[in-house]
């Protein structure tokens, strides 16, 4: 229970709980802050937070699974959200998702095997008149096409295949498109 959490991470969790715990009904806010800091909330973290807050771990787990925002697994190096709201659906959101899935080699939502990309579907990003819309590492892209999204993915994945750090792509690297 909570044993697999590093001490430095425990300190960070302590701080978050201290900051929010004075508020009545802070559980969701605490989990949001944890996710903002760590990128996800693991079951171990939930156990640890439960000890600090005295909120039963089962309640915390219930919250983490009820709300779409929470992830129990870490995300990949690049985080892509594709809007599947109505306007984006009509404008071809499904084709975008398929193009990304093909490109990163996954079947639906989730993280690619190499850990480079995570794909997530969201309900609506509020830019509906520019559909289809995606966010790529937090930045919003309007009027996306499968071609444009493939380019983004390839560019971001550039460093991977030849094992080089970003910005120093080897000549002749296959991913150097």
């Amino acid at each position: 229970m909570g044993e697999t959490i590093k001490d430095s991470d425990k300190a960070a969790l302590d701080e978050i709980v201290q900051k929010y715990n004075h508020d009545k009904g802070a559980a969701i806010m605490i989990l949001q802050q944890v996710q903002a800091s760590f990128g996800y909330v693991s079951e171990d973290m939930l156990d640890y937070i439960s000890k600090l807050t005295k909120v039963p771990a089962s309640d915390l787990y219930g919250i983490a699974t009820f709300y779409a925002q929470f992830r129990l697994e870490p995300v990949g190096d690049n985080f892509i959200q594709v809007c599947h709201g109505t306007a984006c659906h009509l404008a071809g959101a499904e084709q975008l998702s398929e193009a990304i899935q093909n490109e990163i080699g996954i079947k639906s939502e989730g993280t690619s095997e190499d850990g480079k990309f995570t794909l997530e579907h969201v309900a609506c990003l509020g830019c509906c008149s520019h559909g289809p819309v995606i966010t790529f590492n937090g930045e919003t892209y309007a009027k996306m096409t499968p071609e444009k999204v493939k380019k983004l993915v390839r560019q971001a994945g550039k460093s991977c295949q030849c094992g080089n750090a970003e910005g120093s792509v080897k000549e002749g690297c296959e991913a150097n498109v």
Partner: protein
Amino acid sequence: MSSTGRTIVNVGLASCGIAAGAQKVYEAFKTALDGFEVQLTFSGCMGMCYKEPLVEIRNPDGTRHIYGKVQPAQVAQIVEEHIQKGNPVLDWIVYGDGIKTPDSDYIERQQRIILKNCGVINPEEIDSYLEVEGYQALKKALQSMTPEQVIDEISRSGLRGRGGAGFPTGTKWSFARKSPGKEKYVICNADEGDPGAFMDRSVLESNPHGVLEGMLLAGYAMGAENGYIYIRAEYPLAIKRLKIAIDQATEKGYIGNNILGSGFNFNIMIREGAGAFVCGEETALIASVEGKRGMPRIRPPFPAQSGVWGKPSSINNVETFANVPWIILNGADSFNRFGTESSKGTKVFALAGGIARGGLIEVPMGITINEIVHDIGGGLASGGKLKAVQTGGPSGGCIPAAMGDTPVDYESLKKIGAIMGSGGLLIMDESVCMVDVAKFFLNFTKEESCGKCTFCRVGTYQLLNILERITRGEGRPGDIELLEEMGEKIRAGALCGLGQTVPNPVLTTIKYFRSEYEAHINDKICPAKKCKELITYLVKADVCKGCGRCSKECPTGAISGEKKQAFVIDQEKCARCGLCVSVCKFKSIQVITGKGEGVTSNG
């Protein structure tokens, strides 16, 4: 804007503008205007999403011009011609004083009350709001009106809730006022869960103080000292601007203790949603504010009696609050001059989908669907024909083009099986498959059902299963009747508004587009050529130039051929993703539905 004697450059930086590249345009102006006696500022939403990035130039004489689709490369010329030489670059102007443009109607047919300040003021500067009579309504109420008089004014205005159900706002406030107890809560519902709707986001990003002022007036009217804003986490910019606004208003004494020396205290807290559509429902929202799972509960007790922390609470939508300062300042009679007998005032709509001019509009209630789509929205983006308009999000209905004369007011829309909803208007042209649309909404509500009651949880799942079968070409006779029957049962048996409205998209599409269901079920065709299992992609051999582009892009390697000769699609391998259609520059790929001749010979 009155004449200021100098030029102001105002860039629209709402989140959709930023997505279209407005931040870069802002930076370009910053560089280009260095050394000029020109004020550079930004605002939120100017409403013309279809022309973003948008830049407004307010001239020294008080007139204004709005440039559309501005790219950083154009900035130098705008500065030189317009600002230095005083010759506006007419070709790039989408709207301006004294100029008739093809887009003039978009702006001129609107009536702005709620959006009055949007795209005008700087949402991150309270002074900018104060210059346009900001917090004057609060001042007026605290200094010259009793709480009862505030409620009375709102009641007489005829304002009804803009979050969907259209409940009279004054009545709601008076319930909360009459509830016993000293601790009461005002809640702003900024969850905006309807996909395809972005009115609330735009208002919050563009005029956050307007919403805060509405909440303060509500607090004064019902005797509450605390307010929550429940806002979805997918709106980070709106959250940021709200936080800035709350800080600035607190600093100036509009929020906090003893506001403007009146003895009235009010504090506002932000609660971020975590991605659950059902949390827009009042009792679920309350549970979520309390830090729990957002499960709806049976009413009564109503929130007005027992809401957050068991205390009387009153929940209103963002746009509802945004109306309030205007009504208090200008009077109920000025407000209800607009609109119809039963639906007073104006309504903000988010136009999206297949419309030529998509964006945010505010129109008097009672305007017809056709006027919105054709006169304001400029018709269909594709140039094609209107097929349907979807109102009210996942719980709404599809209005067929033939009923375009329907006036937009609460009762008229209800009569034809649709609802006003929160204001998302999705415009669909002939390329949209109505069975697919119904399936899309069911898929959404299936994911979002909280699962508490069986009718909603299981019923939604079954409706979706049937729709999936139909779109796969496995529909059976009797399916339509089955959908209708189950729809009625779910509507009657569900506990909360989500389940009660789940069947609406199915029932309205059956009602108005029955033949499309029949085509899928009986003839195994998808007339709009959308449903994957019922379509085939074919290369038109006589048109294909043999460039090979499609074959390079096809994710399944289904296309092959020799350069300069017609390519061929292997039907076994084709995943029907449609990518080849969008990459072929020569329009050589055709889509057919049903067992058309060419399939076997080409496949």
